[in-house]
């Protein structure tokens, strides 16, 4: 009997040992990948702008894995990348829950932040909570990074840098016409841009005849545009998310709101031409993070524009990349370089690289403030925003700043609508 019981126990121990070994093997197999967790707004109010960023991340994943992965010195090998993602449905409640799931259940090594300043703000502290370094793909609002969190850096230019170039250009090309109406959507990103660039406008000597907001997601902005029309400004700066800008431009044309120039944010996005067409867009201008016409010299990491387009076409046939897509690719590239420099997957050491790291990708030169993780301004080697202008054939040209654009291409005054 005793021998029988011992046999049973031995068998049980053997089974348990095998199970652990197998699990260990699986776990070890999983540990060979660098797992990066993120959510994307595949649905909800920000889906139109967010999904291109996610596609950019996927393009980067394909690109880096095709190179063999990221070299991690303390493992003495290249490790492939796996991006784990969920649909946050543009819901703040989902964001927290999903990022916690990524941290605890999926055991990711790093995070990419969700789309946009508002959503990034919600999850910014989770990097600190779970000690997992987070790269913000598209959180331009500086207050995200001024909360004292140590595990997040900015992968896009700051909001005021984003909004400034349009005003710089106007001050240069049209110094005798300084009346400007500034309207913004009451959402974190456009609100951040508007609040910061109002100061810029004041310093550049603009007379801000109207500074007003409209509710986020509003379908009808005819009231505020009627006020703008009555004030007869020289320039209009309409700062909104893409959906808001589509509504605003259409209603400007309907109400015959006229100005020497009209600026919008995220100019050049595919969705504008899809919704509005080239004829309405002709002459509209504004800042944007990237444009196909923009080719930076001296790329130190990652694909150039043509390579990026080819990768995108392969991964997402029939889908056009837009101005937001390389934000996702860029986030991957800066994380990759930081890991390579750190030689480890330790989040503290990876974050520390941003104190001295500089690189140039297809989105331009980049450098960071060590304490806050904010992207530095272009004068300090940080990412620049550019100003592009639409043409009637629905193409765009880069017109500003002079080091990246051609002012001779600018159609001015536009005198729309």
């Amino acid at each position, binding site marked *: 009997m005793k021998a029988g019981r011992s046999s049973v126990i031995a068998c049980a121990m053997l089974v348990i040992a095998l199970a652990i070994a197998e699990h260990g093997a699986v776990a070890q197999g999983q540990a060979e990948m660098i797992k990066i967790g993120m959510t994307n707004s595949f649905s909800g109010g920000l889906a139109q702008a967010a999904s291109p960023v996610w596609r950019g991340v996927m393009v980067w994943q394909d690109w880096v894995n095709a190179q063999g992965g990221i070299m991690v010195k303390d493992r003495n090998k290249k490790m492939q990348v796996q991006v784990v993602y969920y649909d946050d449905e543009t819901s703040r409640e989902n964001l927290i829950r999903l990022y916690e799931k990524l941290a605890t259940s999926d055991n990711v090594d790093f995070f990419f932040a969700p789309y946009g300043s508002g959503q990034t703000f919600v999850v910014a502290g989770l990097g600190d909570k779970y000690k997992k370094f987070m790269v913000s793909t598209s959180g331009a609002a500086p207050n995200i990074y001024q909360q004292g969190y140590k595990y997040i850096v900015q992968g896009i230019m700051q909001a005021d840098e984003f909004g400034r170039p349009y005003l710089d250009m106007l001050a240069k090309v049209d110094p005798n016409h300084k009346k400007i109406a500034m309207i913004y959507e009451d959402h974190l990103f456009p609100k951040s841009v508007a609040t910061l660039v109002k100061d810029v406008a004041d310093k550049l000597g603009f007379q801000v005849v109207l500074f007003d907001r409209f509710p986020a997601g509003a*379908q009808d902005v005819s009231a505020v545009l*009627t006020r703008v029309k009555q004030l007869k400004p020289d320039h209009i700066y309409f700062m909104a998310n893409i959906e808001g800008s589509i509504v605003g431009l*259409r209603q400007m044309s309907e109400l015959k709101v006229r100005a020497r120039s009209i600026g919008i944010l995220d100019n050049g996005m595919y969705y504008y031409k899809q919704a509005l067409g080239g004829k309405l867009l002709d002459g509209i201008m504004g800042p944007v993070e990237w444009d196909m016409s923009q080719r930076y010299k001296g790329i130190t990491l990652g694909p150039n524009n043509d390579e990026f387009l080819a990768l995108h076409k392969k991964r997402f046939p029939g889908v056009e990349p837009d101005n937001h897509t390389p934000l996702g690719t860029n986030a991957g590239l800066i994380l990759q370089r930081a890991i390579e420099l750190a030689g480890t997957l330790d989040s503290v050491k990876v974050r520390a690289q941003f104190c001295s790291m500089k690189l140039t990708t297809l989105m331009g030169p980049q450098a960071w403030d060590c304490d806050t993780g904010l992207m530095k301004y272009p004068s300090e080697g940080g990412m620049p925003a550019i100003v592009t202008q639409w043409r009637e054939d629905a193409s765009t040209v880069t017109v500003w700043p002079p080091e990246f654009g051609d002012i001779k291409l600018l159609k001015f005054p536009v005198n729309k609508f």
Partner: protein
Amino acid sequence: MDLLLVQAVANGLLIGAVYGLAALGLTLIWGIMDVVNLAHGEFVLFGAYLTFVLFSQRGAFGGINPLLSLLLVVPAGLVLGIILYRLLLQRVVGRPALTTLLLTFGLSILFNNSLLNWFGPDVRIVRWAQGSLVMGGVALPWTRLIAFGLVVLSSLCLFAFLQRTYGGKAIRAVMQDSEAAAALGIDTQRVLTTAFAVGTMLAMVAGMLVSVALSFSPANGVQFSVTSFVICVVGGLGRPLGAMLGGLIVGLVESFTGIFISQAYTPAMVSLLLIAFLLVRPAGLFGKVVR
């Protein structure tokens, strides 16, 4: 200032008419069967997307005219209403309010996510009749003028239906007293089916107008439902004239608030309007005051 005032009135009336038509369907359904249809906004979206699909058939400048698309939108709305009522709503009419709310809430989620899956989250615009009529400095977008005209026509048709046809009179009878109507030989189930079908159809016609006058995406479904709800309260439940007038009032409140105060406060002002009516005249403009 005078021009601004005229533009404010014009803006408010033109958009308010579209709101009113959207609410017309809801007030009819709510008034006759005491069902708060939380999927109402999605019915509006169905009409908008159907118009968009037809218009986009051969590209933006070769598609089916949105006015002609009514030939499909109207019957589609009636058929959808009949199917939904017979299959689902019929089972919950007369049940506790929570039951009907849950059912229509579930439908709202199902329909909204279906639209999201089929069409994606992109904002859509039907680029038709662009431009405006400018009269004395006041710009009147063609799309909104046409929408206003269609709302007037739809309202007259509905009025004629309710006043002059047996079906319409039967609907009014059931709305007043369903038991008495049944006792007089009116087939109440048939009447309720008809009312739900007409309400759905009106919502989809409103959606067609939204597609040309505004922009839309699946995310706007809730907004349409909420605005229609407010209008129903302002106008009085089951009162078509009240819905139209309520729509115009909401449109004017939004327009005047946006122009003379700030557009940022328009949702708050509409909410205040709702609260004011609930406190002062909960039956709405044309509802029966019960003492």
